C-alpha cells in the first residue's frame, strides 16, 4: 500500500528535516504480578518535520504508551526516542500534549489556563506580549468571547478548543493529541478537525495524534500508523494518505481512493488484526 502514488507534486514546502522525530527499536515492558508484560516490542518510526501522523489500533495496543514516551512521561525499556537527534528524557513544552479529557484547571478561566502555559514557556517576554499571544491563540480556535469563562461553563467542544489553544500558544515542535475528539459529538468533531488542519497548516508543526476513527485519520493525516494487537504490539503497517492539501472533506469523500484506503485500513483492523474480544 505504500506504493500508492506519492504526494502532490506542486507543493513548494521548505526543506524538511527527514528524521525529525525518530522512534528506534522501542520496546516497553511493565512488571506485573504475573511477570513482565510486554506492551510494545520493536517499534520503529521516523517522522519528518511538519508531518501529520495519525496512530490507530485497538484499545490496549499501546498507542498511548508510545505517545507517552514521545511526550516523555515514560521511558522505553529498550530502544530510544529521539527528537532532532536528542534523546527524550522528560516531559517538556516542546512536545505539548492535548489530553483526551482536556485537563484544564477548573479554577482558572479559559484565558488563565492558556496564560499559565504561555507564562511558563515564554519567561522572557513582557506581560503585554504574553497576553497578546494568549488572545491570538484563543482567537485562532474561535473562543475570544468565552475567554473569561471557567471550564465548568464551557461545552466539551469548547473545552477541547481551550486545550488546543493552550497547546498551540507555546508553539511546540511536536503536538501530541491523545484521542482529542473522542468525547465530542459528530458535528463538533468535524468542525474541530477542520480547525486543527487549518491551524496546523499555518504553524507548520509536527503532529502525532491517536484516534479510533479511520475517517478522521484519512481526512487529517499524511500517514496513518496502524498498530498490531498487544501484547508485544508493534507497527503493523504505515498507510500513505496522498490527498492534496488543503483538504476538502466533500472532495475526499468523492474520491475512490478514499474508499480504497478506508477498506484497506478496515481490513487491517477488523480482519487481519481483529480484536479478540470474544475469546
Amino acid at each position, binding site marked *: 500500500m505504500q506504493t500508492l502514488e506519492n504526494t502532490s507534486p506542486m507543493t513548494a514546502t521548505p526543506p524538511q528535516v527527514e528524521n525529525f522525530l525518530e522512534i528506534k527499536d522501542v520496546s516497553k515492558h511493565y512488571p506485573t504480578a504475573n511477570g513482565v508484560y510486554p506492551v510494545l516490542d520493536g517499534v520503529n518510526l521516523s517522522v519528518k518535520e511538519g508531518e501529520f501522523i495519525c496512530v490507530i489500533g485497538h484499545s490496549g495496543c499501546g498507542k498511548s504508551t508510545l505517545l507517552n514516551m514521545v511526550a516523555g512521561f515514560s521511558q522505553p525499556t529498550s530502544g530510544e526516542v529521539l527528537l532532532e537527534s536528542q534523546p527524550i528524557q522528560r516531559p517538556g513544552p516542546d512536545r505539548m500534549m492535548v489530553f483526551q479529557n482536556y485537563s484544564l*484547571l477548573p*479554577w482558572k478561566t479559559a484565558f488563565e489556563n492558556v496564560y*499559565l502555559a504561555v507564562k*511558563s514557556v515564554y519567561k522572557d517576554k513582557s506581560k503585554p506580549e504574553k497576553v497578546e499571544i494568549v488572545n491570538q491563540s484563543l482567537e485562532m480556535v474561535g473562543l475570544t468571547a468565552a475567554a473569561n469563562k471557567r471550564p465548568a461553563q464551557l461545552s466539551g467542544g469548547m473545552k477541547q478548543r481551550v486545550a488546543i489553544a493552550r497547546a498551540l500558544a507555546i508553539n511546540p515542535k511536536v503536538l501530541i493529541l491523545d484521542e482529542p475528539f473522542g468525547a465530542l459529538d459528530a458535528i463538533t468533531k468535524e468542525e474541530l478537525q477542520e480547525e486543527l488542519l487549518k491551524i496546523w497548516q499555518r504553524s507548520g508543526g509536527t503532529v502525532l495524534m491517536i484516534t479510533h476513527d479511520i475517517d478522521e485519520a484519512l481526512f487529517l493525516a499524511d500517514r496513518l500508523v496502524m498498530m498490531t494487537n498487544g501484547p508485544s504490539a508493534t507497527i503493523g503497517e504505515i498507510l500513505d494518505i496522498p490527498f492534496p492539501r488543503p483538504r476538502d472533506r466533500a472532495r475526499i469523500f468523492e474520491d475512490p481512493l478514499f474508499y480504497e484506503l478506508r477498506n484497506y485500513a478496515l481490513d487491517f483492523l477488523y480482519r487481519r488484526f481483529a480484536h479478540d474480544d470474544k475469546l
Partner: protein
Amino acid sequence: MTMNSAVRRSAPSPVVTALIKRGKSLLAPIVFVGGFLLIWQLLCLSPDARIPGPIRVVSETWRLIVNPFFDDGGTSKGLGWQILISLQRVAVGYTLAAIAGIGIGTLVGTVPFVRHGMDPIIQVLRTVPPLAWMPLSLLIFQNNDAAAIYVIFITAIWPILINTAVGVQQVPQDYKNVSKVLQLSFPEYLFNILVPSTVPYVFTGLRIGIGLSWLAIVAAEMLKADGGIGFFIWDAYNAGNEDSTSQIILAIIYVGLVGLLLDKLVAWVGRRVAPSEQR
C-alpha cells in the same frame, strides 16, 4: 372562558410566589420547634418535675438573657462575656491547629516517607478523647488557660491534618501531567495547581475541626477553668440554687447556637475561597 385567562388569573405575582415558597420552607421548622417546646412544657407541668419547662426557664433567666454583658467582678459575668472567653480560647487553639494541621498535612500528603512514619502516630492519637488530654496538659502547662487551649489544639488538629493530607494526595494526575509538560517551577505548581485543588479538602477538615473545638472547650472548661461558658454551666450546677437548672438549660441552648454559627462561618468562608463550580 379561555384556558389562557384561567391560567393568568391563577398565577400569583412573583413576590407572592416567593413569600409562599419562603413560608413553606419555614413551616416545617416552626411546627417541629413549636411541638418540641409544647411537649417539653407539658412534661414539666407536674409540681415535682425536676426540670423546669421552657416558660419557667425564660422567666427565671430573664435577667441573664437581657443583660448578656454584665460584669460583677471575678467569674460572675454575663453569658455574652462567658461565651467570648470560650471563643477566645477556641480562636487561639483552633488557629494553631489549623496552621500546624495544614502544614504537617501537606508534608504527610507529599512525602511518602513522612506519610508512612506519621500514619501510626496519627491513627493512635486521633482517637484519644479530648478530655483525656486535660490532666497531662495541666501538668505540662501548669496553667488552666494554656491547658484548655492545648486541648482544643490537639482535638482540632487531626481532621484538619488528615483532610489536608488526603487533598494533597488527590491532586488529579491530569493536572500533574499539565504541570510536568509545562515544566512548572515548584512555586508555580504550588499556587496554580496544588493549593487550588486541595483547598476544598482543607475546608472540610477545618469545618470538622471547628465543631470538635467547640465540643472540647465546653468540656475542658467544666473540668478546670476560670470563666467561659463551660465553667458557667458547671458553676451553676455546683451552686444548686433555685434557678440553677434554668441557667444550665439556657447555657446549653447558647452553646448549641454558637456551635451552629461557628460551623456556618467556616462553611461560608470555604464557599468564598473555593466555589463549588471550581472544584
